[in-house]
């Protein structure tokens, strides 16, 4: 038989007390306890501890009987309430009256179908605008304005055809003129585009400019080799640029001769 030391017994006395040792060790343990009073006392103490811990639990158990009936009823009632208030129960209650359910489902379906139709029209509908729609008109106009893209030669001033010398009194001026260049290269409907009422001086200036421009000659615009009449807008800008001369050549450190040469 396997012999055990007191140290081994003390380490495993708890498992022995609980009957959790393998059979061989259990027998060895019992053999040791028969010959060792100290270890035997240890085991007795553990048994007594167990008895003391269990003492009174039978009495507690008796007292509990009355409480447990009420406890079971409380638990079941609360469980029932909890189930009634749970989300699945609420959903199933909501669908008990299917008249409301059908209405809700129908309106939801109608909404979904409408949204799908709207997106379908956006994605699968015709991409080009109608010619009489605003977008169509804008597209047509923008296409016509780019003459080179449709093979149009814009009207050009004949060499020395448009001269506006001596027209402008002011140092700086900007004027816009519009006119139709006919097939023969003449101007029709010539007019100045003014944003505000001109003063008398400005009016004279504009009239002089219109007079000079009306006498100008143009090569007409051409599409596919044939002359066409087009409406054209010109922008006239007059700017005077002056150089800055030193007032006193001595102050600048240059001689009079050098200043005249410069």
């Amino acid at each position, binding site marked *: 038989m396997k012999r055990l030391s007191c140290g081994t017994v003390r*380490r495993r006395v*708890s*498992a022995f*007390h*609980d009957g*959790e040792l393998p059979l061989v060790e259990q027998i060895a343990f019992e053999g040791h306890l028969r010959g060792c009073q100290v270890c035997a006392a240890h085991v007795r*103490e*553990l048994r*007594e*501890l*167990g008895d*003391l*811990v*269990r*003492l*009174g*639990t*039978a*009495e*507690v*158990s008796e*007292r*509990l009987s009355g*409480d*447990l009936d009420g*406890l*079971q009823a*409380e*638990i*079941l009632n*609360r*469980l*029932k309430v*909890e*189930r009634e208030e749970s989300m699945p129960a609420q959903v199933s209650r909501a669908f008990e009256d299917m008249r409301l359910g059908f209405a809700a489902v129908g309106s939801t379906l109608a909404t979904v179908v409408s949204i799908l139709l709207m997106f379908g029209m956006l994605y699968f509908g015709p991409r080009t605008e109608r010619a009489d729609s605003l977008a169509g008109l804008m597209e047509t106009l923008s296409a016509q304005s780019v003459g080179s893209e449709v093979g149009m030669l814009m009207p050009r001033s004949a060499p020395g055809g448009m001269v506006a010398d001596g027209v402008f009194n002011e140092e700086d001026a900007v004027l816009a003129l519009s006119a139709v260049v006919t097939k023969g290269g003449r101007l029709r409907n010539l007019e100045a585009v003014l944003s505000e009422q001109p003063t008398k001086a400005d009016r004279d200036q504009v009239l002089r400019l219109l007079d000079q421009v009306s006498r100008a000659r143009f090569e007409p615009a051409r599409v596919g080799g044939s002359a066409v009449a087009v409406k054209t807008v010109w922008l006239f800008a007059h700017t005077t640029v002056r150089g800055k001369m030193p007032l006193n050549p001595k102050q600048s450190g240059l001689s009079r001769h050098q200043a005249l040469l410069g």
Partner: protein
Amino acid sequence: MKQAPALGWPDVADREAVLVRRCATGDDEACATLVAEHQRMVFQLGLHLLGDYEEARDLSQEVFFQVFRTIGRFRCQSAVRTWIYRIVINQARNRQRWWRRRHRSEQVSLDAHLEQHSDRAMADSTPGPEGQLKRKETASTVWHALDALPFDQRTAVVLREIDGLSYEEIAFSLGVAVGTVKSRLTRGREALRSRLREARAV
């Protein structure tokens, strides 16, 4: 008289599995059966771990609610009783953390309860009034010591000494290894034993 046929473990397991399935589908009768079968164990264990009747009652309710909320996920890999033990212990652990701090002064401990109610039980096992009183005091001392143990050691001792669970069952209920259960039991019992010796030496 006709004898009822003996139930083997497979029969018990099948019966439990059927009961669990019925509870999972919300069968009120099955729920009532489950509560009736385990409420005593739940209440007593709660009382032993927390030491207070009202707390144990509240704990029992919470335990069963959690049982019914999660019973659909229970796969019968252990006995229902062991699974419920685990829930009780987890709930008790959570409760005793804050409850003991706040209501310690108001607590009616189990040893006090024993003092009031265990006269008859002790009268059966002790010879005279003096011995009866002595044993009553000793039991009170042990329960005080048990109450002072760390929660995990106390739970291991209660599950073993009062509920009689095996080491494997205790390990499952506590969610620890069997070796851990052994060491907790050994340390818990050593603390109780030394406290008992001190009481006797006085």
